[in-house]
C-alpha cells in the first residue's frame, strides 16, 4: 500500500510540468529515412509488369471536342491501351456541391492542360510518343480569361451549373448594423487591393501507382494529402464498393494544399489497373504540375472600415472577387474563406461580406497554405497601417487597442477561445526595437508590422456526417512495442512525429518502441487528411484518448499485481512504477504482459469530433474551428530609391502555438511559412498570356517551369527571429495549436507596410514587385499619389444579403429571415443547379459548407 507521505502520480497531461518528450527538440521519427534516401515516395515504387500512363492534354483553353482520333497512336510500339472520357462517365470533385470534374474530358475542355485521353504503354517513352500521336479536333469557344471577362460574359458558360452565367458562387452576408456602424465612424477608409494567384510548387511531382489485386480489388499508392477523400472519389467514379479499394498515401514530397484534391491521374491509373490486370503508374511532368494547380486564387478586393478617433472600429464591409479557374475544386469554401476569418483578430461590431467566384479558362484554383485567408488578411493589415497613419496612432498600438478578447464570439459567430496575440505583438515590438526605430529609420529603410489568425482544423468535415474527424487505434503486446494506426498523412509537416510523441509521452515509453502505420485506408481508422491545419489538434486528441485508455488498462493490471492503487503509478522511462518508491515497479513490457494476461489481447481506440460552433446561418460552416492560432510579424526592409529593388533583412515573428509538441518542428514550420510568404510577397505569380491571335486562340501558362516561375532561393532569405507564445489551449492536445499555415499570413502585408515606412510608397497588390515600387517612387517624385494598385472594384450584384444578428445584438446565430425563403445566398434564379447536387442533398450528403 502507498506510504503515507507519497502522492498520487501526476499523469502526463498539459497540466503536468514534468513532460519528458513533449516540448523537447527530438529528432523527427522519419528523420533518418529522409536523409539516407531510404524513404519511398510514390514515384519510387515500381512493380513487376508495370505499365506507364501519359495524358493527352488540351491545347486550347475552351472548346467542344469534335473528334479524338487514336488510330495512329494505337499502332505505336508498346501501346497497351488508350482510354477516353466515356469510360469514366461519373463526375467527381472534392466538394459535394461542385462535382464538376471528369477524369478525362467529356465533350468539352476548360483550360490548356485539361486531360482528354490517357495512353498506357510498356515504357514511359512509348506512352509519351503515342500520346503525341493522338489527334484531337476542337471547336473553339470564347476564352474567359479573367474575373472581369467572366462578369461581362455570361455565355457561353464554362459549366452548366453555378449561381449565374460564369459566376460559380455568390455570397452576401451581413452581421449586425453595418450601415449604422459606418454612420458612427469618425473616419471611413476604403482600399481596393489585388492579390495575384500563385502555386504550391512542391518539389515532388504528383505520382500515383495502382496495383490490381483481384477482379474488383485494387490498391492505389499516391502522393496525396487526403487519402480518405481520394478513397471516396475512387469508389464513386469507379462504382465499386469502397471496401474493395485501398488507398495508401506515400510520404508526400511537399503539398502545401496542392495535393488535397482527388486528381484525374489517380482515378485513371486505378481504372486502368483494374482494366488491364497489371500495375499502372503515372508521374506528372513539372509542366503538368502547373496544370494541376489548385493554388492560391487571384482575388480582387475592396475593403471599407469605419474607425472612431480612438482607433476602435465601428463596421467593416469587405467585397472579394475570386478568379477560380476551370473547375470548382475547393472554390466554394475558398470563397467563404476570403471573409470568414476577418473577425478573429480585432473586435469588429458589424461586418458585411460579399464575394463572388468566377469560372475562367485556366487551371483550377483551390487551397494553398492559408486557404483563402492570406488575400483578405493582406488587405486588412495594409488598411490598418493606413488607418494608423490617418488617426496618428502607432500601428502596433492601434492593433493592441482593437484586440479581440479571449473567449469571444465574433460578429459572424466564430468562437475564439485562447488568444496570445497581445504577447505576440509585444514580443516582435520589443525584439525589433519597433518603438525606437519605426518611422525613424533613414530614407530607404523601414519596418512593417502585420498580424494574423488561423484555424486549427475546420470545424466541419467536407461532406456532411456525424462521425469523428480523426481516429487512432493502438495495438500493444507482450513485446512491449506499441503500434499506432491512424489515417493521417505525413506531408513533411511532422505529423508522424506528433502522433508518436503523444502516445510515447502518455505511456512513458521511448519513440523507438513505437511503430506507425498511417494513411492506409485498409488498415488505419479514418483521419480526414493533412489540410486546414487540423492534424496536430484533431489527431492529437484522438491519440491522447487512445493512449490514456491503454494506460488505464495497464495501470489496472499492474496495480492489482503489485498491490498499488492505480493512481499512484507512474509511466516513465519505459517502466510503470510506484510514485512513492520508483524501485517498486515493472518494465513496460512486463506491465503489458500483466495487462494482456488480465484482459486478453490489448487494443484501444481514440477519436475526435470538434465541438459544434454556434453559427446557424447558411455559410456558417466555413470558419469555425476548435481554436485559433495567432501570429504577429515585423519585417525590416532596405529599398533602393533609384531602382525600387529591395532586400528583406530581418523578420521577427511571434506565434501563439498553444504548446509546442516539438519546438524544432514548430520553428521549421515558422521558417517555411516566412519563406513561402516572402515568395508570394516578392515574386511568385501564376500568370497567363494570350498567344498571338493569328497563331492560336490559346491562353497559356506564362511560365510552367521551376526556373521561370520565380521562387526564393538560398540567397534570398533574411535572418528570422522566432518567438513561441504558449497559451496552453484547453482544446489542444497538451495545449497545442497549429503552426503550418498561420505564420504565413502576416508576411505579405508586413512587407508592404515596411516598404511604405522605407520610401513612402503604397503597393496595394501582391506580389510587391520592385518595378511596382519603382513606379510608386516615380509617381511620388512627380508629386502624384505614391500608390500602386488596382483603380477600382467592378460593379457586382452579390444578391440580397443574408442578415444575421450578432451575439452583441442578442442574435441566436441564425439568419433574421426564414432561411428557406432565400434558398441560397445571392441566387438570382435556380438556373443550372446540377441534378447531382439535388441528388446529393437528398442523400444528406450535401455540403456541410453551405448548409446548416
Amino acid at each position, binding site marked *: 500500500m502507498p506510504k503515507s507521505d507519497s502522492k498520487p502520480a501526476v499523469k502526463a497531461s498539459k497540466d503536468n510540468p514534468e513532460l519528458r518528450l513533449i516540448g523537447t*527538440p527530438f529528432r523527427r521519427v522519419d528523420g*533518418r529515412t529522409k*536523409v539516407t534516401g531510404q524513404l519511398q515516395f510514390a514515384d519510387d515504387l515500381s512493380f513487376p509488369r508495370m505499365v506507364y500512363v501519359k495524358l493527352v492534354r488540351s491545347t486550347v483553353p475552351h472548346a467542344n471536342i469534335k473528334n479524338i482520333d487514336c488510330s495512329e497512336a494505337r499502332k505505336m510500339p508498346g501501346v497497351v491501351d488508350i482510354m477516353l472520357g466515356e469510360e469514366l462517365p461519373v463526375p467527381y470533385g472534392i466538394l459535394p456541391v461542385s462535382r464538376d470534374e471528369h477524369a478525362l474530358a467529356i465533350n468539352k475542355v476548360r483550360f490548356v492542360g485539361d486531360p482528354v485521353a490517357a495512353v498506357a504503354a510498356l515504357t514511359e517513352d512509348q506512352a509519351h510518343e503515342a500520346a503525341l500521336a493522338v489527334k484531337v479536333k476542337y471547336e473553339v469557344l470564347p476564352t474567359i480569361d479573367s474575373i472581369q471577362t467572366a462578369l461581362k460574359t455570361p455565355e457561353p458558360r464554362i459549366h452548366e451549373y453555378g449561381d449565374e452565367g460564369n459566376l460559380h458562387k455568390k455570397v452576401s452576408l451581413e452581421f449586425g448594423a453595418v450601415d449604422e456602424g459606418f454612420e458612427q465612424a469618425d473616419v471611413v477608409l476604403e482600399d481596393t487591393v489585388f492579390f495575384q494567384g500563385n502555386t504550391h510548387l512542391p*518539389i*515532388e511531382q504528383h505520382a500515383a501507382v495502382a496495383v490490381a489485386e483481384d477482379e474488383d480489388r485494387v490498391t492505389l499508392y499516391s502522393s496525396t494529402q487526403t487519402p480518405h477523400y481520394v478513397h471516396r472519389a475512387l469508389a464513386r467514379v469507379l462504382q465499386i464498393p469502397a471496401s474493395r479499394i485501398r488507398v495508401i498515401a506515400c510520404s508526400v*514530397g*511537399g503539398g502545401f494544399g496542392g495535393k488535397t484534391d482527388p486528381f484525374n491521374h489517380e482515378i485513371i491509373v486505378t481504372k486502368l489497373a483494374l482494366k488491364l490486370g497489371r500495375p499502372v503508374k503515372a508521374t506528372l511532368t513539372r509542366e503538368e504540375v502547373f496544370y494541376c494547380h489548385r493554388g492560391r486564387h487571384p482575388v480582387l478586393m475592396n475593403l471599407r472600415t469605419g474607425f472612431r478617433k480612438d482607433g476602435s472600429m465601428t463596421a467593416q464591409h469587405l467585397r472579394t472577387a475570386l478568379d477560380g479557374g476551370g473547375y470548382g475544386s475547393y472554390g466554394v469554401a475558398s470563397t467563404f474563406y476570403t471573409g470568414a476569418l476577418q473577425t478573429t483578430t480585432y473586435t469588429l461590431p458589424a461586418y458585411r461580406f460579399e464575394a463572388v467566384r468566377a469560372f475562367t479558362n485556366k487551371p483550377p484554383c483551390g487551397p494553398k497554405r492559408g486557404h483563402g485567408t492570406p488575400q483578405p488578411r493582406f488587405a486588412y493589415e495594409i488598411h490598418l497601417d493606413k488607418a494608423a497613419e490617418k488617426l496618428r496612432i502607432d500601428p502596433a498600438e492601434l492593433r493592441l487597442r482593437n484586440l479581440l478578447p479571449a473567449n469571444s464570439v465574433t460578429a459572424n459567430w466564430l468562437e475564439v477561445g485562447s488568444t496570445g496575440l497581445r504577447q505576440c505583438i509585444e514580443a516582435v515590438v520589443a525584439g525589433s526595437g519597433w518603438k525606437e526605430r519605426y518611422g525613424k529609420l533613414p530614407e530607404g529603410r523601414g519596418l512593417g508590422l502585420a498580424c494574423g489568425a488561423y484555424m486549427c482544423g475546420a470545424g466541419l468535415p467536407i461532406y456532411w456526417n456525424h462521425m469523428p474527424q480523426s481516429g487512432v487505434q493502438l495495438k500493444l503486446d507482450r513485446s512491449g512495442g506499441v503500434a499506432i494506426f491512424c489515417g493521417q498523412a505525413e506531408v513533411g509537416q511532422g505529423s508522424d512525429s506528433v502522433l508518436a510523441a503523444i502516445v510515447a509521452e502518455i505511456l512513458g515509453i521511448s519513440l523507438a518502441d513505437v511503430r506507425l502505420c498511417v494513411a492506409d485506408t485498409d488498415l488505419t481508422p479514418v483521419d480526414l487528411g493533412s489540410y486546414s491545419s487540423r492534424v496536430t489538434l484533431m489527431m492529437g486528441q484522438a491519440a491522447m484518448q487512445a493512449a490514456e485508455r491503454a494506460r488505464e488498462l495497464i495501470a489496472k493490471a499492474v496495480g492489482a499485481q503489485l498491490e498499488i492503487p492505480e493512481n499512484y503509478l507512474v509511466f516513465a522511462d519505459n517502466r510503470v512504477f510506484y510514485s512513492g518508491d520508483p524501485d517498486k515497479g515493472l518494465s513496460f513490457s512486463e506491465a503489458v504482459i500483466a495487462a494482456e494476461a488480465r484482459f486478453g489481447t490489448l487494443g484501444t481506440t481514440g477519436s475526435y469530433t470538434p465541438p459544434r460552433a454556434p453559427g446557424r446561418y447558411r455559410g456558417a460552416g466555413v470558419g469555425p474551428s476548435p481554436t485559433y492560432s495567432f501570429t504577429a510579424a515585423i519585417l525590416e526592409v532596405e529599398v533602393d530609391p533609384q531602382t525600387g529593388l529591395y532586400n528583406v533583412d530581418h523578420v521577427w515573428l511571434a506565434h501563439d502555438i498553444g504548446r509546442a509538441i516539438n519546438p*524544432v518542428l514548430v520553428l521549421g514550420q515558422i521558417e517555411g511559412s516566412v519563406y513561402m510568404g516572402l515568395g508570394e510577397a516578392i515574386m511568385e505569380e501564376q500568370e497567363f498570356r494570350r498567344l498571338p491571335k493569328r497563331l492560336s486562340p490559346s491562353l497559356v501558362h506564362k511560365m510552367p517551369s521551376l526556373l521561370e516561375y520565380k*521562387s526564393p532561393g538560398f540567397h534570398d532569405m533574411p535572418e528570422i527571429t522566432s*518567438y513561441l507564445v504558449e497559451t496552453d489551449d484547453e482544446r489542444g492536445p497538451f495545449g497545442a495549436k497549429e503552426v503550418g499555415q498561420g505564420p504565413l499570413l502576416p508576411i505579405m502585408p508586413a512587407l508592404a507596410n515596411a516598404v511604405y515606412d522605407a520610401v513612402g510608397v503604397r503597393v496595394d497588390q501582391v506580389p510587391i514587385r520592385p518595378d511596382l515600387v519603382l513606379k510608386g517612387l516615380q509617381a511620388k517624385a512627380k508629386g502624384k499619389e505614391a500608390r500602386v494598385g488596382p483603380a477600382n472594384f467592378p460593379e457586382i450584384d452579390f444578391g440580397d444579403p443574408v442578415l444575421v444578428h450578432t451575439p452583441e445584438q442578442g442574435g441566436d446565430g441564425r439568419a433574421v429571415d426564414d432561411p428557406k425563403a432565400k434558398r441560397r445566398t445571392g441566387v438570382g434564379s435556380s438556373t443550372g443547379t446540377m441534378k447531382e447536387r439535388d441528388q446529393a442533398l437528398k442523400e444528406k450528403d450535401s455540403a456541410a459548407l453551405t448548409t446548416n
Partner: protein
Amino acid sequence: MKARSTTTTAVLKINDEDHAVAFPVHHTLLEVLREECGLTGTKHGCELGECGACAVLVDGEPVLSCLMLAAEAGDRNIETIEGLQRNNDLHPLQTAFADLGATQCGYCIPGILMLAKALLEREPDPSEGQIREALSGNLCRCTGYNRIVLAVQWAAAMARGDDWRPPPEAFHSTSLPQASA
C-alpha cells in the same frame, strides 16, 4: 514512325559498387540510377536541370543527373545519397540535418546533401556565404533554407571534431523579450 530506343550497356561504378546495366541510349543518369539500378534515393523535380533535386557526385564533382546521359557515366566514380552513410552510421551531414529539422518533406534533401558533401570535402570550414553559394542551385519549398545552412555548419564542425553547436534558439526558439513599459 520514329525508331527510338537503341539500347546500350555499361558498367556504372556507383558508391564503389559495380552495376552492369542495359538501358536506352538516350536515358539520363537519373533515369538509369532510379529505374535500372533501383537507387531511388536520387529524386527528380523537373528533369530540366532547374531544381537540383537530382544532384549526384561524379568524380567528386556535383552533377545534375537529369542532364547527364548514363552513357557518359561509364568508368566514372558516381556517388549517390545511398552511399553517404558508412555501414549503419550516418554521415555528420545526415545527423545534423535529421536533428536540426533541416529536412521536412525530405524530397529535395538528397540532392542538397550531395552538394554539401562536395563542399565539405573542398572546404572543411565553410562560411555561411560559401554554403549558400554552393547550394544556390537547389530549391527547397519546406524549410526556408536557413536551417539547412545551419545544419551544414554543424556537420562541418562535427566532421572537424569541433564541438560547436547551433545556438539554443535553433532548437527552442528565442526567449520572449520583456515588453517595455
